[in-house]
């Protein structure tokens, strides 16, 4: 059982393959470029007009802090991550390469792990570039607390892990890229919007929704410079569960063949 004994050696080749194909097409560059411009632009000029207390943009607020940028992350990534991951499995199925992939003498978990790792790295690279470019601007303008930036990025890495795993799971469940994107955006968008319903929901349900919301787990701690073990465990659990379901779905198809 080489696969069990050395799982890394099985995951990394698939991750490399995915990254290679991502960087060979211009789509990844365009997506990264757009994100690097869009996220800081929203932060600088628009602020965060969602929720009970809208937050002002950088120039209007006049404070050297990235909190508004971090508020945008869960919402923007809820649409960007499904766009990045929509082709992970559905495109393989459509092109018929999934059958070839599944004939390799490796476990489905290794393939899913490789795809997850590649998409997560790509999404994190994009987020880190956008965040750091905005952080450099803010640091040039005032006394920025860099610790909150690093902790925010750590939290973003965990948030992305959960988002990527869910988006890939939904990509594995659908046969079309567009359907995968729509399902992913819908699921993650709904998860993002959970705290908005807290005001109109009964007590117990409100608490449950808040506990289930990735937005709350990110904005309540990492975005403020706090490393909260419970929040990191939440993201890790969501990522593991989504990856588990992803493996089950693909394994089911493999067994049927």
């Amino acid at each position: 059982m080489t696969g069990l004994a050395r799982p890394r050696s099985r995951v990394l080749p698939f991750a490399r393959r995915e990254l290679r194909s991502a960087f060979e097409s211009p789509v990844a560059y365009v997506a990264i470029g757009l994100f690097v411009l869009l996220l800081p632009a929203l932060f600088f000029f628009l602020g965060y007009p969602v929720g009970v207390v809208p937050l002002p943009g950088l120039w209007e607020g006049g404070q050297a802090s990235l909190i508004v940028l971090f508020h945008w992350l869960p919402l923007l990534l809820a649409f960007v991550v499904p766009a990045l991951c929509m082709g992970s499995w559905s495109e393989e199925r459509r092109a018929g390469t999934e059958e070839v992939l599944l004939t390799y003498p490796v476990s489905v978990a290794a393939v899913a792990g490789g795809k997850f790792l590649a998409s997560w790295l790509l999404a994190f690279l994009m987020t880190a570039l956008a965040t750091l470019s905005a952080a450099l601007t803010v640091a040039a303008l005032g006394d920025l607390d860099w610790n909150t930036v690093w902790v925010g990025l750590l939290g973003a890495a965990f948030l992305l892990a959960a988002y990527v795993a869910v988006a890939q799971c939904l990509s594995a469940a659908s046969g079309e890229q567009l359907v995968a994107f729509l399902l992913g955006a819908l699921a993650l968008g709904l998860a993002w919007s959970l705290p908005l319903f807290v005001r109109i929901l009964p007590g117990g349900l409100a608490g449950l929704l808040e506990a289930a919301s990735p937005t709350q787990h990110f904005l309540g701690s990492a975005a403020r410079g706090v490393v909260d073990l419970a929040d990191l465990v939440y993201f890790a659990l969501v990522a593991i569960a989504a990856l588990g379901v992803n493996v089950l779905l693909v394994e089911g198809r493999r067994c049927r063949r």
Partner: protein
Amino acid sequence: MSAAGGNDRAALAHPSARALRWNALLTAALLGVITVLGASLAERHLTRRIDLSEDGLYAVAPATRRIVDRIEDRVVVRLFATEEVADGQYALRTARVRAQLDELIALSPESFELQVLDPSVSSEARKRAADARFRPRQGRGGGLGGGASEEVWLSLELGYRGRTARIPEPMPWQFETQFASRLHGLLSDRRIGVGWFGAPLDPPPEAGDDPQSRIAATFSRFSYVRSRLAEDRRDIEVRGLAEGRPVPEEVDVLFVVRPGAVHPRAAYEIDQFVQRGGRLVVCLDDHDYSVLTGAERPGGEGLEGFEQSALHRALKSWGAEVSRQQIWDKTWRTRRLQFNGGRWALVNDPMVITVREGGLSDEVPPTQSLREVQFWWAHPLATEGMVPTPPGVVRTDLVTTSDGSWLNQRVFQLPRSAMDVTRQLANLQRRTDPGRFTLAAAFSGRFPSPWAGAEAPEPAESIVGAPPAAGVPRSAEVDSTVVVVGDADWLRDPQDFGAPIPALFSEGGGRLFAENLVDWLSLDEELIGLRSRVPTPRPLRDFVGEEEAKLGVFEADPYETETERAERARKADRARGRARRRQWLTMLYPALGALLIVGLFGALWNGLQTRSARTSGRGGDA
């Protein structure tokens, strides 16, 4: 082996698609349940949290730990809370307060006894809540439709050695401060007494809808800071000093605010309060202005009146004298609203000074932890060279202006427009060099009494009977501290005119300064550490201001000609243009750098891929 047994084994080895789908569905559901359960278990039991932010606002403060460490007996914590809250928002608020309370109790579990009472279901709990004067809030009831309203209870009572302290409305975002300050008060054997004398005792202006009443409402009042201080201390109105009644024994810190022409006997009683070791804060100020119109309050005595009083002579003999001149601080000027010809105008007013780091002393606790304090139309304290302190008294400057400040003669009408300010500033700049002036100073030591060896002044006539006989005046027997501030508006009630920039007054840092002063003067420095837990202001660079300074927009001659004015307007436009350009460049450079990195990486990656493809192609050909 039977044929049926063989079929079963085959079915197990190669399950049908339907069985596989069910399998996947069940496992997915199981994984979902495990995730939800795991996350809520983690939420409840994994309380490990590290606050790495510079402000450290999300971890228990060292001051709170020190207060909890001082508990000798058990503190009974009675939480009056509705257990089943249908309103989602209130349910979350209760949960957050409860989580923070658990965290605080976990600091020393043996020191606390938690009792949770639900007045919604228990009549006994309801009676106790009513005895404590707690009131429920009205929630919206459950369900998407809103439902009937419900009573939501959330209040806290702390009991310790027969004493009680209450938090009627715990707020999740400041619960630690609320809890620790109440606990701190509970652990002390007696509550600190804060006395008030002077303007805070003036009758409030008449309420009414006519223009005069509305203007009167914008004159100074001091109820906000007093009520905040009274949350954990005793608020004492000091009356009858002129009639020969001494400052009450229970007063630890006496605020004398905009005193005017103090009666000689009142001045004597204040002096004797200091001679007994009482702590004094004197806020001297000129006439009261309406922030709305800039007009003076009619009938005010101002500093002229005070300068005729014996209290002025006493303070001067201790080394403290406040000038009638007003400070104009160009560096730390503040935007304020001015009602000008029926319209709101924003004035960047150098007479409204927001003192920041560099102007707040690092040497003493009351100012060490402050971020900023706003002073309005302030007056400087004379330097030690001009008014020397007596032997045995040490002066510490607490608050100073920036280096870019000037002294101006008292203005009888506040500047009404930006142009007005610019003209007067330019005039000042032409006349004198800028300097740094002291706004507040503390004097500590043994103060000589001006009445030493003399008799107490005669009291004013009283209608409530004869005052107690004055003893022999005491002088320089015990240590005390006197703080003198050249402004009283930092204690004024904040005012909101419904316009974008209200007049902050005491909410511009003054309230914190007052609370810190009281705690410092009553030797209660733990609370200062607790109170300093506010986010650090991190203002952005003012590109427009920098460019205007570079181009010399403010250095205009007040008697400039039309051509000069046009030239200055052109300069101001150019400064704004240059500031805009700098803003854009500051935003674009990092973003373009990030794009460049991505582009370079792509080019490198694709170059390497092409090269390796060529190499492998050549290898294949060979």
